[in-house]
């Protein structure tokens, strides 16, 4: 991701004769807190949203977090939560589908105001966005074909498998860390397709996603989950230095306390993964 | 009074002097043939007359009116150049017909475009176009192509194409019609029909300048002749005189080569 930004900044500088963009200084600001040194941009962020009267939420089509119902309306645990947050700010919500690879570009470029899409709080994410407190637990989980699943029930057995992982995802980070043999593909759904197509033996994806996409009653009925590799947490990302982060944290605390969040979790069957606020 | 006076024309391409102090004049209703070996400057001279090249020195006059003066400080506007060049018509060696127009369309196109500039065009559009079409059909009939006037150039033989090109040039009613080796690109059996048309034009007293390698034709059809060599006019005068009793050794040698 950083490479892509660098490349664009470089070409941009080349064409327009500008120095590399000055936002690198912001990178040092601690994630999750609107630093006083960024007071100016923080003030403008909240004000800007209330002025235009709409919070633009960057999403991808990702059951059960953000997805479209049969009428094309955005629903899901994250989508409903984002709507409630926008209500609390007194603005409308607008969902914009984005390319996950470009989430930081979208945020920094101002075309969306936040990334609210079952986003794992990785080092990469927390260093480039201002993130909320975690609200859901997630696991990176191994998916294999069901008929061979019993051979791969512990970490040691994974060494001879070839993996497909989403480029830049938490799953890719785990695969690299554990020294697994893996290929990067453009998204988690493609990683599952690689197994189905036989070009990979296994995939590492989010457990919340696996619950919706793998096993009986789904399109990948002959796939199943086996080993859970790492535990991690989902959070919402705002622009660095944004005061919306604090507002969202406050909203999480209130909505958890008044039962809104637990109720939503029931609806979308993620109650087991909920993080207390 | 001469219809055309060319005085002291010089033209260079880079360091190569192609025309050196060319002067001659032409009387109304006369035919001038220009002969000489390849590279002697004949074609460049015709191109200068038609404003496709700009001479470095010299003047050109039509009926004593200056249409080109290399020393004149003011540059002529594109419109003035167009007006001046319309004193001349030019028939190319390679015809240069417009392939997407029929024979009739080729003859009419330039006059149609010219007519659009007329102040009364909008009011009398129909009559004007009808007149242009009638004139074009008459010209094509005159050159014996009435039957082929709706054919496209690629459906015509080389000789027929060149005859259409002649009609196209005549449609603009030039004072002087120039021919640049009109039969050089044709098969020998097709040259006759083109030469016949030119001969008929001469009989109708059309003022013409003909650059050609057809020596017998040049001698028969022309009133006056010019022999060019290495950018100079080496000899000029009565056509019969020049062809039968050339005064210059170089002219004799050139004509001998053609007889053998």
């Amino acid at each position, binding site marked *: 991701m950083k490479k*892509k930004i660098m490349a*664009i*900044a470089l*070409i*941009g500088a080349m*064409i327009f004769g500008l120095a590399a963009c000055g*936002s690198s200084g912001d990178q040092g600001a601690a994630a999750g807190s609107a630093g006083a040194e960024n007071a100016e941009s923080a003030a403008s962020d909240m004000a800007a949203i209330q002025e235009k009267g709409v919070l*633009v939420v960057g999403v*991808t*089509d*990702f*059951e059960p977090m953000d*997805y*479209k119902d*049969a009428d094309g309306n955005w629903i899901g645990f994250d989508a409903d939560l984002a709507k409630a947050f926008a209500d609390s700010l007194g603005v409308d919500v*607008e969902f*914009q*589908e984005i*390319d996950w690879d*470009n989430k930081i*570009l*979208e945020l*920094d*470029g*101002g*075309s*969306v105001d936040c990334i609210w899409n079952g986003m794992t709080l990785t080092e990469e994410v927390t260093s480039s966005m201002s993130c909320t407190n975690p609200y859901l637990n997630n696991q990176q989980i191994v998916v294999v074909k069901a008929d061979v699943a019993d051979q791969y029930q512990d970490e040691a057995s994974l060494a001879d498998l070839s993996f497909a992982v989403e480029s830049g995802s938490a799953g890719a980070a785990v695969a690299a860390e554990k020294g697994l043999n893996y290929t990067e593909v453009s*998204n988690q*759904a493609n990683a*599952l*397709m690689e197994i189905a197509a036989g070009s990979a033996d296994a995939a590492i994806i989010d457990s919340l996603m696996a619950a*919706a*996409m793998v096993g009986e009653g*789904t*399109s*990948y009925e002959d796939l199943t989950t086996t080993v859970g590799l790492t535990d991690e947490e989902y959070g919402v990302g705002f622009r660095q230095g944004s005061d919306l982060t604090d507002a969202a944290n406050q909203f999480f605390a209130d909505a958890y306390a008044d039962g809104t969040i637990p109720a939503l979790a029931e609806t979308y069957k993620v109650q087991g993964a909920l993080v207390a606020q | 009074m001469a219809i055309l006076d060319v005085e002291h024309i010089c033209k260079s391409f880079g360091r190569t002097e192609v025309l050196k102090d060319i002067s001659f004049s032409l009387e109304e209703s006369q035919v001038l043939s220009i002969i000489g070996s390849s590279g002697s400057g004949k074609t460049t001279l015709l191109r200068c007359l*038609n*404003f*496709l090249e700009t001479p470095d020195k010299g003047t050109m006059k039509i009926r004593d009116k200056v249409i080109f003066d290399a020393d004149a400080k003011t540059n002529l506007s*594109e419109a003035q150049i*167009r*007006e001046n*060049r*319309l004193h*001349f*018509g*030019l028939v*190319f060696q*390679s015809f*240069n*017909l*417009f392939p*997407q127009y029929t024979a009739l369309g080729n003859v009419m*196109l*330039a006059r149609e*475009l010219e007519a659009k500039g007329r102040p009364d065009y909008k009011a009398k559009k129909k009559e004007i176009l009808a007149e242009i079409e009638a004139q074009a059909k008459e010209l094509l009939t005159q050159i014996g192509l009435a039957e082929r006037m709706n054919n*496209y*150039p*690629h459906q015509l033989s080389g000789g027929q194409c060149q005859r259409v090109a002649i009609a196209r*040039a005549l449609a603009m009613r030039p004072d002087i019609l120039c021919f640049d080796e009109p039969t050089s690109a044709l098969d020998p059996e097709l040259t006759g029909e083109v030469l016949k048309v030119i001969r008929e034009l001469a009989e109708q007293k059309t003022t013409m300048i003909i650059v050609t390698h057809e020596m017998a034709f040049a001698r028969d059809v022309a009133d006056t002749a010019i022999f060019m060599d290495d950018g100079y006019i080496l000899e000029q005068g009565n056509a019969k005189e020049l062809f039968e009793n050339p005064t210059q050794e170089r002219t004799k040698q050139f004509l001998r080569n053609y007889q053998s």
Partner: protein
Amino acid sequence: MDTFFQQLPIVLHALNVGFLQTLKLFGVTLAGALPLGLAISFGTRSNIKIIKSIFKVIVWIFRGTPLMIQLLIIYYFPGLVMHNAIWGGGEKGRFIAACVAFILNYACYFSEIYRGGIQSIPIGQEEAGLVLGMTKRQIFARVKLLQMIKRIVPPMSNEILTLVKDTSLARIIALQEIIWAGQAFMKGSQGISGAIWPLFFTGIYYLICNGVLTVVLGKIEKKLEFFR
């Protein structure tokens, strides 16, 4: 099989919506790039040296870099570097940004095709027009243009078919064209997840579209066969 027939109408509807976006991008690009390409080809043939160089550099940049990078720069650069997201975040802004990138890119390719077409017309055509007293403008419009079009139809047809397929690159700025729509069912959308076939099914749309275009362009080529 039952599920397939339940899914089919949902998928077809989504693919139709995506394909409409594909066609819109294709149509706008063609309508913009055909005339702009001609203007650029005049620019690169200008007698004024500085204008000629500027246009040559523009053509070099747009032909020398991937369209994907151009899309990313045109869409994200204003917001990232100039802190002014001129395109906005919505569908419309993304579509306009994609059109700008595609028109500029394709105009540069088209300009080179035009240039080749104009230069391949014998000089004698212009000279014949001049000695008949026609203006340069008239010569271009009435003599050279149709001859140029005839010469460029085959290479242009190639580029146009490529353009249909290249529209899928606009996915990079989240323009939801047909491949995006097909891929959505792999990730999960409208109750269908992990469905691979919609993505491959998009190929049929491209095939039909390019089939129609091939016939139309072939007809144009045939129409221009009346002269040589």
